[in-house]
């Protein structure tokens, strides 16, 4: 039988919509992080890589936003009609990076977390969504490889290692919270849409982060349990609206030229 969103029960439909919005909007803010980081790049090939990752993150955003039209939204509204209180990106990306190591740590966490979330759909009965997840996976490989390559460089400096570790310890709880605290999360597994539960995703994510930070001098102190974030909105997968400065930085301007 052909997959149809309308064929899903209410809970599963809402859970899917919420999950995809959370991933899409996080990718969107991540694309903006990459945009603003390009000229901070530390070599000519870095400038090129950061520009490419900007395009890729925005491309993932576009695919997901286009998919979300299936839920009855108008694309123009998704892209340009929403305010700071409507964007569902990860709280972890609310604060701008304080340094190159912080930038690397945070984008690496964001890439790992969003990949964990979307990879749950690789075997989804909706082949369109499964294909989308696969494409994101192919490109995420290179984003993670970029971080890995830079971590090798950071590992050769005690100061950079410390800065990276400090950033990781600060940002990680928010990534963990984003993966774990979902409403109606079992509804997706029950409906056969996603083959991994949030609890399992958190575990897999924690294992990847532990593996990826084995090079740090002192063991990174990361929480096991899902942090409780004050003001957490389970449907939005975040606490509070986007900070004003961030929203101002990411929003689409120039409505005269929009099409």
């Amino acid at each position: 039988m052909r997959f149809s969103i309308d064929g899903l029960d209410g809970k599963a439909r809402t859970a899917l919509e919420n999950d995809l919005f959370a991933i899409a909007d996080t990718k969107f803010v991540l694309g903006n992080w990459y945009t603003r980081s390009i000229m901070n790049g530390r070599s000519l090939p870095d400038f090129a890589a950061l520009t490419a990752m900007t395009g890729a993150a925005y491309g993932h955003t576009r695919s997901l936003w286009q998919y979300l039209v299936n839920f009855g939204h108008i694309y123009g509204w998704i892209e340009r009609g929403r305010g700071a209180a409507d964007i569902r990106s990860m709280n972890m990306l609310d604060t701008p990076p304080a340094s190159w190591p912080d930038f690397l740590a945070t984008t690496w966490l964001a890439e790992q977390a969003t990949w964990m979330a979307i990879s749950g759909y690789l075997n989804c009965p909706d082949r369109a969504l499964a294909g989308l997840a696969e494409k994101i996976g192919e490109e995420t490989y290179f984003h993670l490889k970029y971080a890995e390559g830079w971590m090798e460089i950071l590992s050769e400096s005690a100061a950079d290692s410390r800065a990276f570790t400090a950033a990781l310890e600060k940002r990680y709880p928010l990534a963990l919270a984003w993966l774990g605290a979902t409403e109606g999360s079992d509804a997706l597994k029950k409906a056969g849409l996603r083959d991994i539960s949030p609890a399992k995703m958190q575990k897999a994510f924690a294992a990847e982060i532990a593996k990826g930070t084995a090079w740090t001098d002192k063991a990174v102190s990361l929480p096991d349990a899902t942090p409780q974030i004050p003001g957490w909105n389970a449907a939005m997968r975040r606490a509070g609206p986007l900070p004003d400065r961030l929203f101002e930085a990411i929003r689409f301007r120039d409505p005269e030229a929009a099409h």
Partner: protein
Amino acid sequence: MATRIKEDLYDEAAELALQHRVKAGYVIEDESEMTSRYRDVVTNTMHIAADLEIMTLPVYHPALVAAPTLEDRIAVAAAIQDELGHAQVMYRMLEDFGYDTVELLFERDPADFRTFYMIEHPQHDYIECCVAMLLGDRAGYTTTRDLEENCSFGPYARSLRKVNFEEQWHVGHGERWVKFFWNHSPETRKRVQKYVDFIFPMAAMWFGVPDSMKKRTDQLAYKIRGASNDEMRQRWLTEVVPYCEQVGIDIPAHFDKEKNEYVLDYEMPILLNEETGEWDYTTVTWEEKFNQWRKGGRNKVAALERLQGECWGKEFW
């Protein structure tokens, strides 16, 4: 670091012999085959090309931030990525001649970058970016096509295959979207015309001084390039004038039936008022024009300083 033999006088016999060989079609593959002056001319050409490419990053970046839709942001990012790939190709080749890319990009005084006036002004939004692709990328593409076809230094000529493949896309993108914004609304049409007015004379001057004025013809003598300044300017006009006339865009150039060629409506050189952003179509002296070029566009130093610096925290966004 490659050794450079600096002679007080070039060995004129050897230079002349090489000029004959390349004119006959000989393609140089390695530095060891170059005479001193050939080496100087080709590395000078590549150095300018490299600096022009890297300058596109700070120039296009505001358009990436301001692009009105996600699709447009993706298009600008793709264009920037291409240009950075071109910069990579050029600086990589310069490394083979003993240049140091870290020094060139991150330690050199921004005022010493060898960019052209047209690329020293930022594109504030997507419409300006598309007009720049239509006219500016088209100018660069005219140069790089000539180099790929004719350059006697094989590795440089071949490296332009990728560059030209991608520039063709940029020019096409510019053509499609300028036409779109011309017809989209009265407001966007006004914006297209305004930026065309601003950039057209700069793009026309991309090709340098008229042939009658050109003292050094080394690039032609050593077949680093095939066409002269005027020939390339004519090629560019042949492509942009019919397009603009067909769309309805007002430009200061037309086809002169008597001369049987495209001509500018004004006599070069003319000066830009950097404060107002408007051109004064009164012909000035070449010394005045060289002074404007030497001073550089308002944005040049700040743009390059941004590449050499880093912004975090409150400065990040």
